[in-house]
């Protein structure tokens, strides 16, 4: 089947097997390497993408779910101001983490801070709890997310 959707802001058409999950299609057909299965379990949290603004594990979705959607992956935010602000806040909070996990963590932080609302601690914890990773101190990540949020707010105010 041929799927048409927006990938990181650009319209795209790809051929996909109906039985294939969206993560495999994005990796194999679109070159999106920031997502991965990561574990024998269905969802390790490392296949998270934003579909129409909502974080969803692409490994759990059939490829046809992408039809007509606006999909944002880590590759799509690398050049954004938010990405720079997130990296800056991670650096200040001494977050050094497995580089295979980092894109997911940054994308989830991006989603939280661009929602333009108060970030609840339980919400961050819930999101982080989706990600399988040996290591990573939650309190420092919480601080970093709040800091990135503040950086962004200050920038927007100045603008």
């Amino acid at each position, binding site marked *: 089947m041929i799927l048409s959707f927006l990938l990181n802001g650009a319209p795209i058409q790809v051929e996909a097997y109906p039985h294939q999950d969206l993560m495999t299609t994005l990796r194999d057909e679109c070159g999106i*390497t*920031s997502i*991965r*299965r*990561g*574990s*024998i*379990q269905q969802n*390790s*949290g*490392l296949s998270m993408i934003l579909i129409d603004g909502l974080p969803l594990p692409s490994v759990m979705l059939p490829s046809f779910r992408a039809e007509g959607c606006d999909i944002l992956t*880590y*590759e799509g935010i*690398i050049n954004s101001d938010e*990405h720079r602000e997130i*990296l*800056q806040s*991670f*650096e200040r909070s*001494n*977050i*050094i*983490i*497995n*580089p*295979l*996990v*980092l*894109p997911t963590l*940054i994308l989830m932080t991006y989603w939280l801070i661009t929602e333009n609302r108060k970030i609840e601690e339980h919400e961050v*914890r819930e999101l*982080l*709890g*989706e*990600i*399988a*990773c*040996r*290591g*990573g*101190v*939650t*309190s*420092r*990540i919480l601080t970093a997310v709040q800091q990135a949020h503040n950086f962004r707010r200050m920038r927007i105010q100045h603008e």
Partner: protein
Amino acid sequence: MGAPSSKTDLTCISNLSREEMLHGLIIRSHKIHARLLNIRCPDLPQDFYLISASDLGVRNRAEILGCSIPLFVEENCMYFGEPVALLIGPDQERLRAIGEQIQITFEELEASLDRENLPDDCIFLERSYTYGDPEKDFAECNRTIEGTYRNGIQDHHYLEPMGALAEPDGGNLKIYSPGTHIYLIRDIVAAATGMSKRSIHVFGCYPGDDLDGKLWYPAILAAQAAVAARISGKAVRILHSHEEDALYSPKRAASRIRITTAVSDENSEKRSRRVELDIDMGSYPVGAEDFLERCVYQLSGRYRLSSLEIKARILRTNSPPLGFFDGWGDSIGSFALETHYNRCAELLPADPGQLRSDTLAMPGDRLVSGVRIRSDADPGHVLQAVIRASDYSRKHAAYELQKKRRGEGSIQTDAQRGIGLAIAFHPPLYLGEKERMQSSAVGLRLDGDGSATILCSMYPGSAGAEQAWKKIVSEVLGLKISEIRIEAPNTVTCPDCGPETLSRSITICSKVLENCAQAINKRRFRDPLPIEVHRSFRLPRSNKKDARDIPDAYPVYASAAAVVETEIDPGTMKLNFRGIWLAIDGGRILQQSAALQRLEQGVYSAMGFLHSEVLELEHGRLQPNRILGYRIPRFGDFPDPQIQLIQPDRNAPSLGIGELPGMTIPAAGIQAISQASGLYLDQIPVTAENFYRYLQEQESSEEEDFEMMPIIDDAGTEGGLS
């Protein structure tokens, strides 16, 4: 510190692809132990090949750390899932379809699986060590305390699975592998293909967490892919699925360690110990000698003993290969010893912290291994630091009282709490002379644009180690962190620095890198750029041998003490960890945030080993449905560990600290759970099934009013029986 790098351009084996690349599908044994009779394969389409042992002849073996491993089953398969053949072809869907049509005929043989009751021919290696006169000391002591400690297997659970890509390149062969010792891969591929080592170029791919699971196994996959590439003349990639990784790649070795300690009420210095140790390393015990040596080293401990006897065996069973996990034999030896110490404290009775303080060997003392403890290696300060930080002594006493009252039925609490303590000492590098035999070279190049490139045949091991390497070069050469890059490991431009294990990326590479940077500094304003220097690690002359001619790997040992506090909801029996404390003396800490990151990773891994990562072999095979329930920790599963980095001497060498959480947290955790539950627990992981079994045992022993206590009172005054 530089900004955390967010890499999507990492060289991962799963991201690599080549035009006209063939995919490899491993055809595996469906028997545990059997004689291979026949492989029947349907007619293969063009560009599809089936490669088995008969295509390789005498080259079908890889010699790795004292163990000979066939690339494909020759005569007998030794474990369920052992590679029998490799099917290669351009289309993965068709590969799978053809793979299902391949029929392998075996004649079944008796399998050796029960590690508690194995025939003698399953003993791969046997060693015994004696210090003093245990026979005499046991006769003179009036009390013995005995325990048998077991640990299960643990999966590395890599986010990036095992794999290899082999690509013909003129007369050469390029190999891409996530193995952590690329020069070993080069040698094994050269032996398997009959090519010269010079014509094999290995490029390291990102291996993932440095848990030692990719020390040797990727070399087998690389050799298989290389043979296939030679036969087909095309690039061949073998990529494990996560299922294959979980079912067939090496895991942490399982062990059973029986420790008996004899103590004398009259003479506190009279303390003897007997240890019987069995380690199951599965069908191919790679590195058995070193693994056993390190485990024995831990079991001999840093405590004062009048005598010691250790009988140690490596067992060869028909299980998949088992062995390294975040260290070699250290963590399982340390777990058994520290759990036994907590048991001793409970039965003597004594405060576990005080008992350790009283019996720890102090600077100037000679250990039973013969090595003298140097003045700069006092272990007491980490013990006191963690006891203070966690308020261990007060909490332990309070929870002990709570446990006693619960047992008497005088109080009912909402939550049952417990706290546990353990300490460990980690000799970095290989023990004794072995480090001297290991190549440990690193290079550094100052380029024409003023930037520097680190040349090392291993990935830094962790994101923290990467930061530490860059920081060293930055400080010596006065460059910005952003001006320093690390060349992707390869055998073409990077010298051989040995395997990435036992914290060598810090203990060896950082030191050698510093030497390289200093050498460049001397030449940078004299010689034209680029300047490239290579340096090798040398053991300090003073540490080669002590006065009794006993080799010593390093002047000091990294030491750690851990406390874990837990509570159990009596209604749901749910475990809730309330706190994790660690105090670490790792010598000179190159970069605090990097060290903390590595320790936090170690804590998560150890907590998984303690209770959530449950994997059991059933009749020599892992059941896929059980694998699905395997759960590595996730963010927020545990409270943030409170870690203290103690640096008594800033000029001391940097020691390996990454393995220390795995050596302390499980023993501390099991004591905490034991105290909270009132059950005597002696094996990890602590599963719901184990918990239920212990409960049943306790109830039945209470019903019979006849206690099976692991304490023997020779005088018969306390009524304990064994």
